[in-house]
């Protein structure tokens, strides 16, 4: 249910990522977030963990709302923008604890997004 809600929301927010509504999972392409991580699979699995964590996944929109600004016109994600977003998150206290590690909300959001889209592709 959480993933479904997230997908619904993401499809509206991030058209550049070519996310389809639930039920059309095959149409979802891999988002361009993967290059942010040297090990995208690890990030995806971390995202899966976060989606299973009630305190993090209670309102996916809240966590994912930052990522819209990352997407460029060509649908790719700007690493520079991600870096700025991350810095802003840390400077303004928009942080999330995952396994006790202090992470920026946008970092967690990116991991969750990877997990959601992988789920949709599956």
């Amino acid at each position, binding site marked *: 249910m959480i993933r479904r809600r997230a997908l619904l929301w993401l499809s509206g927010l991030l058209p550049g990522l070519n996310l389809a509504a639930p039920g059309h999972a095959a149409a979802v392409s891999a988002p361009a977030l993967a290059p942010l991580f040297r090990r995208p699979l690890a990030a995806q*699995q971390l995202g899966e963990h976060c989606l299973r964590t009630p305190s993090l996944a209670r309102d996916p929109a809240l966590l994912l709302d930052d990522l819209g600004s990352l997407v460029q016109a060509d649908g790719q994600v700007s690493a520079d923008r991600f870096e700025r977003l991350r810095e802003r998150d840390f400077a303004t206290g928009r942080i999330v604890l995952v396994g006790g590690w202090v992470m920026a909300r946008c*970092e967690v959001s990116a991991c969750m997004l990877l997990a959601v889209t992988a789920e949709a592709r599956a």
Partner: protein
Amino acid sequence: MIEDLRQLPPGADIDADLCIVGGGAAGITLARSLAAAGRNCLLLESGGLALEADVQARSALEVTGLGGVDGCQLRYLGGATNHWGGWCRPLDADDFARRDWVADSGWPIDAEALAPYYSQAQAVCGLPAWDYQLENVAGQDRDFGAFAQSPLALRPYQFSRPPLRFGEAYRDELGRSDRVRVLLHANVTGFETAGGGRAVAAVRLQDSGLPDRRVRARCFVLACGGFENVRLLLQSHRQAGGGFGNDRDLVGRYFAQHPHVSCASLLTPQADQLERLFSRFAAGDLIVRATVGAGAQARQSQQLLNGALTLDRLPDPVTGVGAARALWRDLRNGEWPDEFSTRLWQVVSDLDSFVASPDLMAFYARLEQAPNPDSRILLSDQVDAQGVPLPRVDWRLSAQDADSLRALLLLVGAEFARLGLGRVQLPEWLLATRVEWPADLWGGCHLMGGTRMAADPARGVVDGNSRVHGMDNLYLAGSSVFPTTGFANPTLTLTALTLRLADHLLAQAPRS
């Protein structure tokens, strides 16, 4: 002069102008200050010139609260300075203020009132120069500029190096003095009152195998440490009914220490640089160590207690960062711990583009404790060899203490990540809904608060001049009068307060 009561012939009562009970940092400082101004005093020390088992046994405790309170007192000339670490730093200005988010906060004096005494205390504690601005003492080879625009505060300690043992350092001076009479093995066990209970007429001395004596004086100052000041006042309650300064049941309450605890790990690609910044270094005559904590503005906006973190390469072993350490060890050994931990670590490493091997460091917290009336010292049913009840110590921390530490670590974690200095991991125990403090928690032997200072007798035991409320001639010296504690080790502040007390006493009666 220095005399030993055990060597004196049995005799009559002893008379003095001003009697100081306790020969630690406060007692010695007060005696020296008064003598320098031409005032005679008698300094009673329950021990001798070195540790003696039978004397030290009087410092036994009954502990009913958190641990980490044993072994703090030393009963011989110099008191706890015989084992202190020499860490010195003044309280911050806002430590003296009333803060809306800290119940029962606020001193009856402000930082300005203590400022002139701090610089004198600096010399008394064996420190070369008064400078607690890190940018002044860091030198050009340590660049803390990365933190310049940060909400964090970098506040340095100075070190009395080697730690000044007051008993050794000032023994010859006391021995030569014709104004100070030091009486060793003078164990005070109670009071006699006059003036309808508003004045102390005498203190009673009791020692094994010796006849009891009394010391009469015009003025008394208890300076025997955070436990003993309380113990003697509570003992007076048993003897006199009502006791001194305890009309409002405040004696022994608000007992506080500085919680010291390993509290977070830092995964960093810059361990060498950080170790250089945050380990002890010499700056001219000074030995300095930087701490990191929330700046005054952040403390106010986030309603934090004061606190500071030191940072070290991960010692072995450290409670509270064990999980991170185990993870790091496993990864280095090519072993894979549970999948989630591994993935998490990989992602955290990736996000900060760690190209070389990151290293683990550990944050160690030194915290202000929120004033807590339920954290207290009582009298035990157990007694010492003279039949005096032992202190029963029920040291307690509150949810506010844990919440404030957690918030501090989140702030530090966010800032270190923002500055590219690494990633902070909070320990599991601190994330629990109800925090159970770990086994390595201790209070630093900073025994504070049991006879707190307040202008209003309803809120404290002593007034702004350290005089016991309701008593004409009884004063307290030492960290037991601190109403709030800041995070800085107490010796420098209690020395400064004692110098201020000396000025007050001299103003009352300038010369003997």
